[in-house]
């Protein structure tokens, strides 16, 4: 068997796409302390927006810009009620928001194809062969990953990022020091949603098909796992988390062929996954790579 280079590259593309999601959650939760359990909703908004724009014949860059704008808009909308709420309320509210949105996209065929979704979404780059397309995707996705990584690192090392962390640490104290925390939380959700939206746009053009069944709450949980395992508050960490998640998911599919166990491999994978989450939370709550001490100057 030849070395499955295409499989590896595909895995890296997925790592990139979900890595962007993890980065956005890291901004929202890792830095600002907002537990957004509706990540998949913004991923979905981005995917659908970008798909509709590119299917209408406009270029990819417009599609992704639109995806980011619309996602940011919805992020800001959701933030209106959400940011005044306690963490647990916010989590449940965002979870509910994602499910409502999926129901709407599923049942209203006129919006975007209803239950069967949209197919034939144009790719970002037009290429001639499968391999070159894969490299093309890899480059496109990692341009976004790197851009967002630099952007978020820059924010983190700025007074703006420091302020977001202050809100995470103690909102009332931040308020008492004159920070309009509500406004900053709304901004964080909008920026985070825009980033998540671009990730959705990349996903849509990579698969070239999207449907409501692709946006189940399990994606939200997966992104959370990436952030928790990789390292809350550390952008490098969550990217590593995204890679670990992909390796885990695909690895368990491959390893089941070599392992003879009396347990169904699919069940086994999820049981280990559940345990892993608990173990990380209990024994290394800061995740694989710890949040670093930031010096602005």
């Amino acid at each position, binding site marked *: *068997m*030849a070395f*499955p280079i*295409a*499989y590896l590259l*595909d895995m890296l593309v*997925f790592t990139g796409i979900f890595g962007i999601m993890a980065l956005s959650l890291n901004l929202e939760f890792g830095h600002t302390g907002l537990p957004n359990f509706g990540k998949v909703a913004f991923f979905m908004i981005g995917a659908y927006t970008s798909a509709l724009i590119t299917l209408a014949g406009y270029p990819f860059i417009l599609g992704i810009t639109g995806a980011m704008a619309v996602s940011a808009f919805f992020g800001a909308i959701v933030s209106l009620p959400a940011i005044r709420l306690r963490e647990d309320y916010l989590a449940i509210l965002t979870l509910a928001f994602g499910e409502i949105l999926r129901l709407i996209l*599923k*049942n209203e*065929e006129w919006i975007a194809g*209803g*239950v*069967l*979704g949209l*197919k*034939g979404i144009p790719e970002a780059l037009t*290429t*001639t*062969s*499968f*391999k*070159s*397309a*894969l*490299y*093309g995707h*890899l*480059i496109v996705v*990692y*341009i976004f990953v*790197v851009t967002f990584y*630099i952007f978020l690192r*820059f924010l983190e090392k700025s007074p703006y990022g420091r302020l977001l962390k202050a809100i995470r640490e103690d909102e009332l104290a931040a308020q008492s020091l004159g920070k309009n925390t509500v406004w900053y939380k709304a901004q964080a959700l909008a920026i985070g949603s825009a980033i998540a939206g671009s990730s959705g746009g990349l996903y849509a053009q990579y*698969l*070239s*098909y999207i*449907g409501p*069944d*692709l946006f*189940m709450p*399990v*994606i939200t949980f997966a992104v959370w796992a990436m952030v928790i395992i990789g390292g809350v508050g550390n952008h490098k960490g969550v990217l590593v988390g995204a890679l670990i998640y992909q390796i885990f*998911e*695909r690895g368990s*599919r*491959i390893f089941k062929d070599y392992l003879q166990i009396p347990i*169904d491999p*699919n*069940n086994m994978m999820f049981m280990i996954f559940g345990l892993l989450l608990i173990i990380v939370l209990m024994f290394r709550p800061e995740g694989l790579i710890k949040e670093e001490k930031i010096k602005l100057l």
Partner: protein
Amino acid sequence: MSKIKKKILMLVAVILLVAAFGAGCAEKQAPSETPSEKPTPSEQPPQPEVIKIGVLLDLSGDLGAIGQKMKLGAELAQKEFDSLGGIGGKKIELVVEDAATDPAKAVEAMKKLVEVEGVKVVVGPMTSSETLAVAKYVNDRNVVIISPSATAGKITELGDDYVFRTVGSDDLQAAALLDLMKSRGYSKIATFVIANDYGIGFEDYFKKYVPEMVALSIRYDPQKGDYRTELQQVKDAGVDAIIFVGYVDSGKVVFRQAADLGLDEIDWLSSEGIAENVMFEDAKTADFMAKVEMIGTKPSSTGFTYEKFAEKHRQAFGSDPDLFSDYTYDATMLAILAAGTAPSYDGPQIREALKKVSEWYNGATGYKLFDENGDPAFYTYNVWKVVKTDTGFKYEIIGHWAPATGLELIP
């Protein structure tokens, strides 16, 4: 400041490097990767010792129970060839992956089959969303897929490509159901469908072609499990019949609650999604289905070839074949025959071989000639009716439907 600039420069350099490298690789590999574009016989990969057939079914999740049984159909086809010493002296190896009733997982599993296992022909995936989700990839990768159970009309639109299916579009079955409804003289019906591609496909068909007949349409969430008020509305609406489209799992819940609410005075029609013997495992469901004399359609599996398949299935697994296991059997047979007769184990050639094989293959579900869209060119649907026998319950075949002949009921 300068530090950041440096970093950005570094990153840009890295990106450019990767891009250049990637493009170079792509250029170099392009010809050998896609022999179909420049067919040079000397470079063709030789036939492997073992012919690998991918099987991508939902072995867990909502459709896990159905998928597990469909897998038996695929295994039966493999056993048959292996008992004959394989095809052209080569053994058949089934590489089974689970799509877990999740299109995202289906894509991932498909890639594992193709990239890691090197499979060029795959039986599956099961659902229409999964098939649509992998379509782009398999076309790009020149991998033949034969779905035994993706029934959405939209798959036809994919056109001439690497996507085939052994089962007809839902639009046809809906037409069959409609003829059945007309033959019974209904003027007002209610649709009661599962809220997914399968159910909504049927609902859309009826709403499109006979909007005046559809008095009310219900979509139900299979997770909800509380359909009393929906059913009560159907009861109050005073329709002639209720058209139920769903799967076994939620179907049982709907029928039990319908029985409890006394919806047994209306006619019930349904489709293949529930035409499975496991429905009778629950006594209340079985009683209800027999009491209302539920009728419905399903893609046909009758006649001599089906009986032979069913006999083999019973011998091998000790049970009657279940929903779609016959279609899975045929899809696997076609895949094996195509891969075995193709000059090399290679997607485009398997596709051509598949088209040839399909011209003469007569399987458990009849002739399987593909039309230009990769859909079966011939389809007949059976009309079934639930009856109570001395030993239990069964789906009795009371007629057939085909586009050419229309509805023919056995007197």
